[in-house]
Each structure stands twice: as C-alpha cells, then as structure tokens.
C-alpha cells in the first residue's frame, strides 16, 4: 500500500524553487507608491488640517465636556498614538527576548 507524501505547509526553504527568495538590484523602478511617498505624506498633513478645520462648521452634541474642545478628537488620537508607540518602546525593553528564547 503506497501512501501520498504528507502535505505540509510551505515554510521558508532557500532551496525550494516554489518559495520566492529576495531579489536585489533587478532594475526595479518602484511603483506609484514608491514614487509618490512625499506626495502621500503631504496629502496626509493637508487632510489632517482640513478635517481639523471642519470642527468649526458643525454643532456638537456631546456626552462629556472635553468633547466640546476644539479638535478634541484629533488631538486625542495624535497624543494617544504617540503615547502608545513610546510606551510600547519601553515595553519592548522589558519583554523582548531573542527569537529562540523558548527553544533554549
């Protein structure tokens, strides 16, 4: 009785032709995204400014007082994210271990 080989998930194997390996310097000129990084960033800043200004043009109905501050949501999002990233960097100092930590 013959048996088909056990199917396994592809894992990284440099000798397997099916699994792609990184290619360097093949004359890649990038894509729309890589060519317009600066434009995308500028667009982001402009959008941010515009949505902030929209705060002047509608009537808020708030549950909490701070919601009435000008640009509260934008401010909160910005500060929140910066805090998140900075605290996460601190967390990394505490919990990061080398990849084979559990194999040791």
């Amino acid at each position: 009785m013959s048996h088909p080989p056990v199917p396994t998930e592809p894992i990284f194997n440099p000798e397997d032709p099916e699994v792609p390996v990184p290619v360097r310097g093949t004359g890649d000129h990038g894509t729309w995204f890589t060519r317009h990084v600066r434009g995308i960033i500028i667009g982001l800043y402009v959008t941010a400014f515009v949505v902030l200004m929209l705060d002047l043009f509608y009537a808020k109905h708030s549950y909490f007082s701070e919601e009435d501050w000008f640009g509260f949501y934008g401010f909160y999002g910005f500060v929140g994210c910066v805090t998140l990233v900075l605290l996460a960097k601190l967390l990394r100092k505490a919990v990061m271990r080398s990849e084979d930590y559990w194999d040791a």
Partner: protein
Amino acid sequence: MPSFPPALVLSLGALLIPFLRGPLRKLYLLALPIVSFAALLATPQGSSFDYEAFGHTLTLMQVDKTSLLFGYVFHFAAFVGVLYALHVKDTTQQVSAVIYAGMALGAVFAGDLITFWLFWEGLAFSSVFLILARRQADSNRAAMHYLLVQIVSGLLLLVGIALYMHGHDGATAMARLTPSGSGHSIFNLDWAGPGVWLIFLGLGIKCAWPLLHSWVTVGYPAATATGAVFLSAFTTKCAVYALVRLFPGTEELIWIGVGMAGFPIFYAVIENDLRRVLCYSMINQIGFMVVGVGIGTELALNGAMAHAFCDIIFKGLLFMTMGAVLFRTGRMNGSDLGGLHRTMPWTAAFCAIGAASISAFPLFSAFISKSLIMIAAAREGYHLVWLVLLFAAAGVLEHAGIKIPFFAFFAHDSGLRPKEAPRNMLAAMAISGLACIGLGSFPDLLYRHLPYAIPDYALPYTWPHVIQQTQLLVWSALAVGTLMLLRFYPPELRSVNLDADWWYRKATRAFVAFGQGPLMRIFGWLSKAVHETIPTGLRYFARNPGGAVRLAFDRVALGWAGLFRGMPAVDAAQERLREDQARFAETTPGAAWPISTTVLYTAVVFLVFLLVVLA
C-alpha cells in the same frame, strides 16, 4: 416543519469529505455551508430541536434573533473560509475545519448548558487539527499549548455546569424563549454558589481575557495559512455569544473588557509576527464586545453583537490576506516582508479594505458597530471606560490599520516577488471585502437583524460622528507617519515578546523539572516501600516478630549512633546489625515477589475489612 440543526449538517457532512475526490470534493465543500444555511433559513424562529440523552433533554437547536445573528455570520465565515481554502489538499484540515464550523453553530444554537458544553468541547478538539496540520515541531508544541488551555476551559465549564445544576435542581436552560419566540431572551445566571464562577472563568478563557489570552497569541500564529482564518472566526466569538446570553450586565465584564481593549495594543506595536499582531488586535476588538456585554443595556448588547458580526468578517479578511502572504512567501515576520504590493496588488487592496474596516473608517464596517458600544458607554456615564475605548480605537488604527498593510505590502522592499494569491483566495477576500464595505455603507442591513431596535441617537451616519471619527483616525495616522519620518517608530525586529504565558510556561518547566527530579525520587522511594520494604518487613515480622522489631529498632538507633563512629561499643553493635541484616536477607528473598506482595496486601486488606465488620 421539522428542523434539522445546521450544526449536524456540517459536522456529519464533514465525515463524507474523505470519500470524495477532485472537483467533486471542492463542489461538496462549497455546498455544505450553503445547504446548512438553507436548513437554517427553513427553521422558523422560536422553534427548537430536542434530543433525549443521558437523562436530560438536550435542546440542540433553539432559534431566536441572537442565535440567528451569530448563525448567519458563522455560515458566512464557513463559506468564505472553505472557498479560501479550496486549493488545500490536506483532508485533515478540510474535515476538521468543517466540523469546527459545525461545532460553533451548535454552540450558538444550543438551548441548554449541557448541549452548549458538548459543542464547546467540540470546538476545542476539532480546531486543534488546524494547528497540528502545519506538521512542524514548533506548531505541534503550540497546538499542545492551545489544546491544554482549551481543555482546562472545558473542564471548568463542565464542573461549573454540574455544580450549578446541583444547586438549582438540575436547571440547565440557557435561554427561555419568549412566547413570541423572537428577540433576544435574557437569561442571567444566578450568582449563587461556586458553579457560576467556574462557568464565568471557563468562558473567560475562551474569550481571551487578560492573562488567560496567550492560547490565542500562541496558537493562531502557528496554524496553517488557511486554518487561522477559521480559527479567527469561531472560538472567541462563541465565548462572546455565551457571555451575551448568560452574563449580560455583569459589571466586572466592563473592566475586563477595558483591559482587553487597552492593553494588547502595546504588544501589537512591537510584535514582529504579523498574524500575532492580528491576534492582539483581535483581543482588543473582543474587549469592545466584552465592555458592551458588561454595560448590558439594549444598545450595548446590540453593539456587542453587531461588533462581533463585523469583526468576524473583517478579521477574517485580514487573516486571509496574511494567509495569502504566508502561502506565497513562506514568511510571516514583518522584518522579512515588505514591498509586496508590486506583485500582489489585489491582496494588498483587500488588506487595505480590512484595515479600514477594523479601524472604523466611515463607510467601513466597524464604523457602524463600534460606535454603538461607545455611545452606550457614554450614555451610561462610564467616562474612564469611554476614554480608554477611544484610545484603543486610535490604537487599532496604529497597529491593524497601518502596521499590517504597511509592513507587509509597502515599507522597505524586501526583494520578494511572489505570485499574486490563487484565484479562490482572491474570490474569498473579495466577498469579505465587499461585505465590509456593504455593511459599513448600509448599516440597516445589519441593524434590522439585531435583537433590539437602534434608537435614533445611536445612528452612525450623523455629521458630528463622521467628522469626529475621521479626525481621530487621520490624526492618529498623522502621529504614526510623523514618528516614522522622525525615525522614532519601533522597527520590526526578529524577536519574541514575553507575555502572560511566561508564567505558566515557566511553571510547567519547573513542574517538569520537579517531576523528573524530586518527584521521581519520592515515587521511587514509595515504590520501594510498597513493593519491597513493607512486604519484606512484614514477612520477616511474621516469621520472627521479636527479631524484626529489634532489627528495626537497631537500625534507627544505630543510624543515630553513626555520629559516634569509632567507639568500640558502637562499632560492635553495627557489626552485629550487619550480621542480622545478612541473616534477614538469607531467610527472606531480597526483591519482593509480585505474587507474595499481592497476597500480603490481600491479607492486609482482609484484616482491615475484618476489623471493620467485626468492630
């Protein structure tokens, strides 16, 4: 019309899969969720399907709006998952995935606790194969970790149910259907006795509560590319469903949910394995749902259920895009990936849709569900809760909305040029992507299936809500972009991060070390006592009681006398003891003989019985 539980359609239907081959099998796999869905549609609300077993009436199927809502989305997830995995040849995965979906359906339609528990265990046992099917040493370890935690959860639940029944005259009903048979039937468990606590904790494990969550972050990233898609849909959402059913309005849940929403995002920022990032993000999303359940108002419960509904779809979509990347490149670490949008544009686009959905951009699905929970929290005056949730909502954008698509498809060019995902994967992602946009754009599609009506003040598409949400998200994105430009953003590093599992991983290792060291010695000592010392001693005692007692006494006494070695009297006594022991060994066989041991124990047991009966 007699109904047939969809759970059985899927789980029994799955048993036929191994007997089919080729295209027929694919067709059958796709047909199963459809047939099951048809069976569900044919079942009128308020009907139930009872089965008499081991002295209990098992209500295999009980249909109200709550269970229907989960039933719909589980069918959706099952169909999309099967389509996504259509190229897979591994029968183990196909069978277990379909059974797994069936078990999830069984759990949400279960009308009593015992039935619920049966399917709950089924979830654990069927899903572990989706991890084992990876067939790697480390994924096997992860599978064991996953299975053990699941079993513990099941045991807690079982014991809890048994104790609860014991304290409540065998009451097992999970929900009482209202006479009209529609709507959501609240059935709060009564907080009396330890049983209900155990149930609470059992559900909490599968709900991935803080410190109980690591089975998600260990298990799911170790699953196969397609298996993780199924895993992301069912287990945790079943737990949310059960909380909605059994513990609505439990105050503790609010704080647990706040912890779930607020804390894992920090880990998501620094995690390298992108599917593990999704796991942390999943815990964060479930946190929102748990808060909703804890608040327990009609709006909050609606929000929890709606968010679960949307989460299954967009989280599935994100896992699908990551699965496609894993499938094509064999890599899953952010540090190894990047620039894939060149050759996988469609996958990248779908990932962006998923990211927008989970971040709750207007017109995408979480926008219409997360807001219900936020508003419910605000209306009930949970100020701190509201602030944390808002922070978590911003954090979602950071890790799931930007990090996942950015590091996989954009960022620096990894040089990888994989093929675009297979067509069946793209089709599955397209369906989910459309569903995300459809739900986000036409909220009533979802709202009308929720158990309670949505009040006007909670409707999502009002100018203030749209603008404020856009502000939050755009400025969060701005923060991330700025940090990246300033090179302040933590880079992707090859690493592992310690998490709650550290405690019990360390504990297990310590336990194993204890087991191999001291415990073994104790067992060895016990075994020697039971098989050798006691029987031999007894035999010698039977032969010469006086001698045996003297010998035992001498041994103890001379053990102490060993301190005074060198004194002539002590040495002589020890010499005599050695002689006695040698004689002892001559008259009694050295090693115990199993027969005689058994016979001796028979004598001992009989003596005990005699003393007992004649006393």
